[in-house]
């Protein structure tokens, strides 16, 4: 019994007892919410949303982002609430946001409702694959975070940039026929997934003055090797992330059906960052002209 009074053991017991005590000492969630209620606390879900908030110079309001928000680099260091489709109500609430800006992808719906029930405003921005859609988003986000003037300026800036890009592209069209582009969304040694109509990749291809080699279906679909040969694209568009996944440009030729296409035979492949190319954020006009220039460099 005297062992129990041993000082070492007593110290250990005290330490164990101190753990819950320290834990109880933290400020409460309610208290934290009150103390910062004077300032907005935003959670941005979707890379485009985050980029727009950064472009509006309201980034110091952001308290959390989803996993797709990887641009600008500073966004990576913000607390991540995980993938936009598998949000956790408690996780989101623990950041005590005052408002959540998200794309239509955010979910699951039940969790969004739980967050809304907790009294937090959720602004869902509709999906779109157009330049006007980008401008609309800028205005909508500007309104929700009370930065209308900044948003109007940004919209004007984007529109001017867009007009310049359109003029530049009209002034120098492609010399012969419009190149036909195959956008490869994801690939593995046995199958390629390509973009049909009504996708963000398709929109970017058309804006850059190119033509989608895939017609007659919507969305991203796996393609049989024979269809790849029939489509015979002049140019292949991929994302840096996609190329990395299969192990570099040289591997493209080994994809099923790809070997004999004009694009591979003449080495016409463009690779761009996925978020930059497909994000439809404020960098979208820039991405369009980059794509156009790279294509022009290949087709003279």
């Amino acid at each position, binding site marked *: 019994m005297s062992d129990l009074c041993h000082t070492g053991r007593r110290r250990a017991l005290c330490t164990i007892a101190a753990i819950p005590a320290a834990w109880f000492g933290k400020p409460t969630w*309610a*208290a934290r919410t009150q103390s910062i209620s004077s300032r907005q606390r935003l959670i941005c879900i979707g890379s485009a949303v985050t980029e727009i908030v950064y472009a509006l110079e309201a980034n110091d309001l952001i308290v959390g982002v989803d996993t797709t928000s990887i641009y600008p680099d500073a966004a990576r260091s913000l607390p991540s609430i995980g*993938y936009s489709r*598998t949000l956790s109500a408690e996780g989101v609430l*623990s950041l005590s946001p005052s408002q959540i800006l998200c794309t239509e992808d955010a979910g*699951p719906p*039940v969790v969004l409702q739980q967050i809304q029930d907790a009294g937090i405003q959720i602004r869902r921005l509709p999906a779109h694959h157009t330049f006007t859609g980008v401008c609309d988003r800028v205005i909508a986000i500007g309104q929700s975070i009370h930065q209308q003037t900044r948003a109007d300026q940004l919209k004007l800036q984007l529109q001017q940039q867009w007009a310049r890009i359109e003029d530049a592209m009209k002034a120098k069209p492609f010399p012969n026929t419009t190149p036909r582009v195959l956008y490869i969304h994801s690939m593995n040694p046995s199958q390629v997934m390509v973009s049909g109509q009504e*996708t963000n990749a398709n929109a970017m291809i058309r804006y850059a003055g190119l033509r989608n080699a895939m017609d007659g279906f919507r969305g*991203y679909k796996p393609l049989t090797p024979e269809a790849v040969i029939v489509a015979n694209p002049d140019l292949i568009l991929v994302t840096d992330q996609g190329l990395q996944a299969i192990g570099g440009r040289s591997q493209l030729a080994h994809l099923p059906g790809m070997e004999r296409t004009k694009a591979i035979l003449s080495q016409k492949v463009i690779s761009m960052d996925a978020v930059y190319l497909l994000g439809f954020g404020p960098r979208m006009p820039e991405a369009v002209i980059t794509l156009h220039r790279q294509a022009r460099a290949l087709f003279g």
Partner: protein
Amino acid sequence: MRQTASHFDYSTWITRLGIFFIGLFVFLIAVNFGAVDIQSADWLHLFSQQNGYEGASYVLWTIRIPRVLLAITVGAALGIAGALAQSLFRNPLADPGLLGVSAGASCSVAIGIVMLDGFRFIPTEELRVWAIPFFAFLGAIAVCFCLDYVARVVSPGSIAGLLLTGIALNAFAGAVIGLCTYLANDEQLRSFTFWTLGSLASARWLMVGVLIGALVIGWAWIRTLLQDLNALTLGENIANHLGVDVLRLRTKVIVLVATLSGLAVAWCGMIGFIGLMAPNLVRICLGSDQKRVIPYSAGVGAILLVIADTIARTIAIPAELPVSIFTALLGGPLFLILLRQYRSRLN
């Protein structure tokens, strides 16, 4: 076989109390940890309930407690369903999936998300939230009964026939799911994939209530079947000779498994391993008397799922990971260790 009622069995009570206290301990841990810090004051506020819940006690009452309770009830339902399926097929590798529950649920959810365009025809968001669980439940039940019916026609009276029909029907459901995945657009595909990963994030008090109701009614019914299920362990023929109506027993078990695991799948998506693991753990530790296996499977299933879910929602705060990762991570090694002990005990 039957124990005399007058005999007070200490070891049974020790096991019961053991499971109860482990459960209670796990519950308290689970309720105390999460993304939002909970203080003792919040607990007091929760019980005093002066002017509605706010702050952390709001989170506690509307999100965390229902979630932990849902984990308990879903874990128990899956444990019971697994134990029933294993005793019906007389095979320790059986799980509710063999009766087509998960295939049916995911098949109808895939159809709902892809063919019906994510239930966009439902006017309000509040109702749409219930569409997927409802559809999943209907699918689970429908495929179970369809399976039972087909098996009766194809191979009347044989439980092995039921198993084989189940495999065929699962393959068919797999084909439908494959077709839906092909037709799906990016968004639908991802919604479906994440549904199949399973999550307890949608917990609400109503779900907990329904599941507790189902468990209480289910258990009352199962109690009357235990004797027959024990007879079935000896084989279909022997059970028949002992006066068990195997066909009727089979129908009852199918109804129970379909309802219990159908409810679980409907609200939480696919949560693997609990149904398989819990009954096997119990059997290794306590022997294969159904009177023990079924109720203790409920307890063990509940404990396993609460632990797995607590890890899933706290490991990457403020994000959360799919719970199935942790049910498998937790269940797998535990299972292997116990299996090894069991083998060495036999030798």
